[in-house]
């Protein structure tokens, strides 16, 4: 059995590298489409200021893209180095989308990024615009494939376990890529990137407007980002609801953790806006609730019920009892692959195989499993409630804060009064970290809420890690934190320098209020 410290260190290492990486990715996803929007205006109106805008924001996009690729590269290898049993167990399914993601990111996206950056003087306007759209498409399609792989971990679709090879095998590629979780997760994550980029562009534009620098460029950038952002935020909230609805059915334990639901009740169920959950006591302190809201949000009815931890733990205990014969049959098949009786037993119990594995974390020898072991494993099947509950609330609060910000930003921009409202420009500047925080806590909801599984209901986390030593894990974790922190310092330095430097302005720093002087000959 793998040392639990090694498993925890492997989790911390993956979480820290993923959270670092996820600081850069959403900005790339969204900024690429904002660049495409600006360039579309340039191509359709012929006004060169939009070309300058696309070039300036393109410079910031490039810095972010480079660091994003560098931090993403190691994660692909981390599956093999730190999660070797997981890679071997589900590699047939997980490997295909991961490989396509690599091809999308490194071939399509990187190639077109190069052409986009160096092609301004070499391509016609329409050709360059097509390249910019391909960069945006490549970035988002690359995210699509990694999110399909991730969705397999949340809701394993399109795969079956082969008792002879002892591995999961792909049964339907279309079920894998069209799984409801993959769809809702991709759209939610991709549009969260749009929101991140829109806040980023608004914030940096506000910085220039506060200092009365590059005013023409900043006003136009602010307008584009405000309209882009208000629509994207509406989209991300809608898709958040869809993801909660889909995820609630696929992963009821995650939903129970998100809502700190300890006891199953008959609908209508209230939504806890604030609560202080105690996992040990299985109760909440200081709850503030909104009647009917949980039924409405999760079941889309006024009187729907959502299972609580008590019901889910009882179901898990039953599934553990049913899964133990499946694991025993698997052990018999590994000794004698021709054992038809073991194969029949396995077939009868295979849907609960993962739960059989889960109890082995408490009692390795399945012949010695007691009721206490089963109860302990069933209780362990609930994710850590406190961080999931609060991460979810921080994400939702950030989402609605950004929506309010974008509505005001759009109104002020449409009134052409945004540069006169210094208080709002200061808020815009301080809004820059908000989507990044929302993205990070969103990741925590998704991945902590999946615990204690790497593949939900199929493969427990404790089985998935590699058999490294604690010293190796501590050393590599320290190395990753050090290197990734230096990446962030480099990114911040390059970004701040590029922002302070500002765009190259052939018209001079105080370009005249727009007129046909911006029209390209």
């Amino acid at each position, binding site marked *: 059995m793998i040392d639990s410290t090694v498993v925890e260190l492997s989790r911390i290492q993956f979480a820290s590298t993923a959270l670092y990486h996820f600081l850069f990715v959403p900005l790339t996803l969204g900024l690429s*489409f904002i660049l495409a929007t600006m360039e579309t205006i340039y191509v*359709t109106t012929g006004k060169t200021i939009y070309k300058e805008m696309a070039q300036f924001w393109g410079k910031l996009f490039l810095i972010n893209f480079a660091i994003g690729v560098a931090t993403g590269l190691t994660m692909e290898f981390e599956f093999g180095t730190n999660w070797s049993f997981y890679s071997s167990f589900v590699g047939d399914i997980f490997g295909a989308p991961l490989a396509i993601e690599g091809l999308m990111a490194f071939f399509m996206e990187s190639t077109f990024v190069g052409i986009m950056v160096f092609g301004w003087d070499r391509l016609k306007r329409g050709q360059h615009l097509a390249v910019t759209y391909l960069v945006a498409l490549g970035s988002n399609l690359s995210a699509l494939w990694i999110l399909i792989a991730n969705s397999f971990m949340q809701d394993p679709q399109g795969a079956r376990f082969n008792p002879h090879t002892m591995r999961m095998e792909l049964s339907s590629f279309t079920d894998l890529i069209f799984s409801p979780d993959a769809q809702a997760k991709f759209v939610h994550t*991709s*549009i969260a990137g749009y929101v991140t980029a829109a806040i980023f562009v608004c914030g940096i534009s506000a910085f220039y407007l506060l200092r009365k620098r590059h005013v023409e460029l900043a006003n136009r950038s602010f307008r584009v980002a405000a*309209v*882009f952002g208000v629509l994207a935020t509406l989209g991300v909230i809608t898709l958040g609801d869809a993801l909660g609805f889909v995820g609630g059915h696929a992963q009821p334990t995650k939903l129970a953790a998100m809502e700190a639901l300890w006891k199953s009740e008959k609908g209508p169920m209230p939504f806890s806006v604030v609560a202080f959950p105690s996992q040990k006591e299985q109760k909440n302190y200081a709850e503030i609730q909104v009647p009917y809201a949980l039924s409405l949000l999760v079941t889309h009815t006024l009187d729907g019920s959502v299972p609580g931890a008590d019901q889910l733990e009882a179901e898990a205990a039953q599934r553990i009892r049913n899964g133990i014969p499946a694991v025993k049959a698997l052990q018999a098949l590994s000794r004698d692959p021709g054992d038809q009786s073991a194969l029949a037993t396995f077939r009868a119990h295979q849907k609960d195989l993962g739960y059989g594995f889960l109890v082995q974390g408490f009692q390795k020898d399945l012949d010695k499993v007691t009721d206490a072991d089963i109860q302990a494993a069933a209780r362990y099947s609930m994710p850590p409630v406190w961080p999931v509950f609060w991460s979810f609330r921080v994400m939702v609060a950030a989402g609605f804060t950004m929506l309010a910000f974008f509505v005001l930003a759009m109104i002020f921009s449409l009134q052409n009064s945004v540069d006169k409202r210094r208080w709002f420009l200061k808020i815009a500047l301080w809004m820059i970290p908000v989507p990044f925080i929302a993205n990070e806590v969103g990741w925590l909801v998704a991945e902590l809420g999946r615990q204690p599984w790497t593949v939900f209901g199929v493969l427990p986390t404790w089985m998935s890690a590699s058999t490294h030593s604690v010293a190796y894990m501590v050393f590599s974790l320290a190395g990753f934190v050090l290197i990734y922190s230096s990446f962030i310092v480099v990114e911040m330095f390059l970004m701040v320098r590029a922002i302070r430097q500002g765009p190259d302005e052939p018209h001079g720093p105080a370009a005249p209020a*727009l*007129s046909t002087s911006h029209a390209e000959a």
Partner: protein
Amino acid sequence: MFRRIIMFALVMGLALLVLFLAIVLGDRAPWYLAWVLGTGTIVLVAAAGGAMYDAQQEEAASRKSPDRA
């Protein structure tokens, strides 16, 4: 003439592809279709918002100095 026919064939091919995708994605992958349509809408509306800024500025300038109108 030949160029127009080629353009027509290309645009018709694109329209058929979009229809095919709409049917296939709409049936099996409604959220993916929503992403395609939503992203297109966001980009186009934001571009229109940007272009509107210029129109507003030009209108304001022409109001200040009617000679330029």
